[in-house]
């Protein structure tokens, strides 16, 4: 018992160290609700305010966080992975961190959520399409999607990922980790450069 308790304490300490080493300022695993979205975005706003972060960077980070969190809350709830040892529906992992040297530092917003394999091709096609488009192409794609797309039952307009790519000027980084024969875990990393974007 004593041993277990010590192991547990060590685990907490190594979590703490890992977070510092990776410059993770926020790590959350669990249900993503609207209240959580509001709390995290205001936390990030306050942190950046304290650091006297540039207004345009603050806006971009806020924007990316909102879209990422809303994607998580809207899409992960379809996927209940408890029976495969994963998280319940509506859950996901959400991380905000910084990476790089101080001269060229970037904010990172990372999300992870379960997805059914049968839904993967559609998402993959969208991600690939977004990454192929340049600034002007993304703008046209967004406008077309806004005109022709309809609001889903959960209030998604299919615009979030396009918008993230537009606002950051970066390619979307993604990865699918196989969970079992029917499910995967979708990871998305968005970078917001602290250097002024064009």
């Amino acid at each position, binding site marked *: 018992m004593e041993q277990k308790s010590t192991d547990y304490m060590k685990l907490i300490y190594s979590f703490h160290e890992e977070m510092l080493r990776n410059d993770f300022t926020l790590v959350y695993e669990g249900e993503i609700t*609207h209240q959580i979205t509001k709390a995290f975005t205001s936390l990030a706003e306050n942190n950046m305010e304290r650091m006297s972060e540039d207004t345009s960077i603050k*806006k971009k980070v806020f924007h990316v966080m909102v879209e990422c969190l*809303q994607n998580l809350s809207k899409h992960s709830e379809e996927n209940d992975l408890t029976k495969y040892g994963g998280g319940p529906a509506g859950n996901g992992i959400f991380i905000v961190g910084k990476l790089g040297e101080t001269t060229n530092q970037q904010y990172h917003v990372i999300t992870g959520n379960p997805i059914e394999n049968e839904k993967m091709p559609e998402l993959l096609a969208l991600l690939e399409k977004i990454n192929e488009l340049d600034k002007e192409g993304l*703008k046209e794609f967004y*406008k077309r999607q806004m*005109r022709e797309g309809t609001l889903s039952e959960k209030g998604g307009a299919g615009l979030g990922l396009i918008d993230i790519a537009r606002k950051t000027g970066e390619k979307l980084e993604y990865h699918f980790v196989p969970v079992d024969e029917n499910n995967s875990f979708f990871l998305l990393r968005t970078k917001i450069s602290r250097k002024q974007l064009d």
Partner: protein
Amino acid sequence: MDVIKIKGTDDTPNVILDAQNNIIEFSGRSLPEDVATFYAPIIEWIAQYAKSPNSKTNVVFKLEYFNTASSKMILDILLKYEEIHKEGHDVMVSWYYQEDDEDMEEACDEYADIVEIPFQKFSY
């Protein structure tokens, strides 16, 4: 016509829809939990207004921030006013953006591209 006045919060905009005083205004932030539910009465009000619009309609947007789901609803609102404009009524959109907010200025240009209503933009 009924007046709609919604006081803004940190995730929903200030909305004034007042036909009698000829004020139509959206300001603040828009990232409601459920965009469809939030904007449904607004779209409905505009549909009623379209039946007997004022001789001049000025739709004012002074938003600091809106999420992508709201961007779709803003387009739906603008398309309603476009119908009024197409019926031969005088409709104008006044779009305010903070001086250094390029995204908000660009959003104005994009809507002006899609919707056939005259736009004027103002930085503040």
